[in-house]
């Protein structure tokens, strides 16, 4: 019997427990409403009620991406420092399954940010954003969550495999928000940046999410959803490959910072 699924679920449960025991890890959910206030105040002050959906969607996406980048990296570092990572490698469970389980739980919890931001709009500004195309919204959100989790798995592996890469962890968030079109659609980015951002699943996902909130028809939904899923799959594959390489390197050198 494969240990992958039980390991995935157990890692997810462990991560949920960690959120409960250490509320500091939920910092991003505390800051989400502030970003909603900041961004919504700009569109409201500019008299652009039509952009309110943008301003409420952006902080939710930023929270989700931010938590995947920060927490996924933290959790694997903690596991390494406590010797848990080494012990995991002695079990039949693939490391990628354990990592994915953790990141899946992180991403699921981060989606609470959507509700928070929606409440900020409704209670703070009297702005209620309706979801014009619920099915498009739900499907895109699910695909985006998968992509965000894939980003988390990949980065967690990168942080452990690469030396000194971790200093960049804190620096990754805003570049990803910008290239992912979290607030401003990437079509507004200059020259090469837009092309680059099209390789990142998030730019397709945020465009689709914005379209799902506006009453007009959603053009080319399935191909665009396909782009989100396809690019996310590439990230997953890269993350799993790197996790596999990490395991091989630890076995070869015997030095992944263990005792």
């Amino acid at each position, binding site marked *: 019997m494969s240990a992958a699924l039980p390991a995935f679920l157990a890692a997810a449960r462990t991560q949920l427990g960690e959120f409960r025991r*250490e*509320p*500091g890890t939920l*910092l991003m959910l*505390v*800051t989400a409403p*502030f*970003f909603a*206030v*900041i*961004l919504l*105040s*700009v*569109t409201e*002050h*500019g008299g*652009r009620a039509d*952009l309110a959906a*943008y301003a409420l969607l952006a902080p939710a996406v930023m929270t989700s991406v931010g938590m995947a980048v920060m927490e996924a990296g933290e959790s694997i570092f903690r596991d390494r420092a406590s010797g848990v990572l080494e012990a995991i490698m002695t079990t039949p469970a693939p490391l990628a399954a354990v990592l994915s389980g953790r990141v899946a739980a992180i991403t699921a919890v981060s989606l609470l940010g959507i509700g928070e931001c929606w409440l900020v709009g409704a209670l703070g500004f009297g702005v209620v954003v309706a979801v014009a195309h619920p099915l498009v919204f739900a499907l895109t959100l699910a695909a985006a969550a998968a992509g965000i989790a894939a980003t988390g798995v990949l980065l967690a592996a990168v942080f452990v495999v690469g030396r*000194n890469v971790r*200093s*960049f962890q*804190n*620096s*990754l*968030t*805003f*570049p990803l*928000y*910008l290239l992912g079109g*979290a*607030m*401003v*659609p990437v079509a*507004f*980015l200059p020259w090469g940046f837009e092309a680059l951002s099209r390789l990142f699943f998030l730019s397709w996902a945020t465009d689709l999410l914005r379209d799902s909130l506006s009453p007009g028809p959603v053009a080319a939904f399935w191909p665009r959803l396909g782009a989100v899923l396809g690019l996310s799959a590439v990230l997953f594959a890269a993350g799993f490959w790197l996790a596999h390489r990490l395991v091989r390197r630890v076995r070869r050198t015997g030095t992944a910072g263990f005792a």
Partner: protein
Amino acid sequence: MIAVLRQTMWSGWTDLRLVYTPTTWAFGWMVRVLCQVVFYSTLGTLLGDPDRTRFLLVGAAVFIAANETMMASASTTWERMSGTLSLLAAAPAGMVAVLAARSWFWIATGTLSSSIALLALAPFFGLRLGFGESAAAVALVFVTALTNYAVGLCCGSLALRFHGLRNVFANIALLTMTAFGGVMVPVAFWPAGLQWFAAAFPAVHGLAAVRLAIGGGSAPAVLAEAGFAFATAAGWLAVAAASLWWFQANARRTGSIDFGD
């Protein structure tokens, strides 16, 4: 005391070298800073309003100085972790001085990254700055960093006391300033109560001074805002000292002066 301060400043410098190498600073932190400022500035592009774009650019760029000096909060708790804090059994005022000396480098790097972001991105978002304006802006960015550092220390002193929430205070304070302090929209957008609240933060006055200086404001007006920045900073320093005193008293009572986590 001078020797202690010199020693502390040196240990702060070695900490900085742990946080950044020249490479991670340039390709990590500076890239993030530029992306963050572009992120907010493009909001103006989205709204199709060049004036708003420039307003957002200046606000976001100057607040990098606030952002970075808030990191003094985190680096203050490194002192707790390294256990050296227990050596500073002097009066709370002495402790404030030592903690202030320890994390001074954030003022320097904050001024640097903020100024680079403002001056480098200005041409791309249609903001023309003459030499005099640029020089004045950099000087006032330094004032912003310096005075906001007091807020960072205050958050740091709270972080020492409530270690589990060490990252929360600085983040909340920074985001509160960013939301209501005239960074993205003029302070006047908010209800009067929030306007008063925002006026308590030195960086809000520092930013106002920069906006006046590059927007053709009069010298006395600029100096008045700078003065407010220093005045409010003094208030925050007093709160930091009180908080450290409280931390110390509590630590003595509970015997946790060793702070070993």
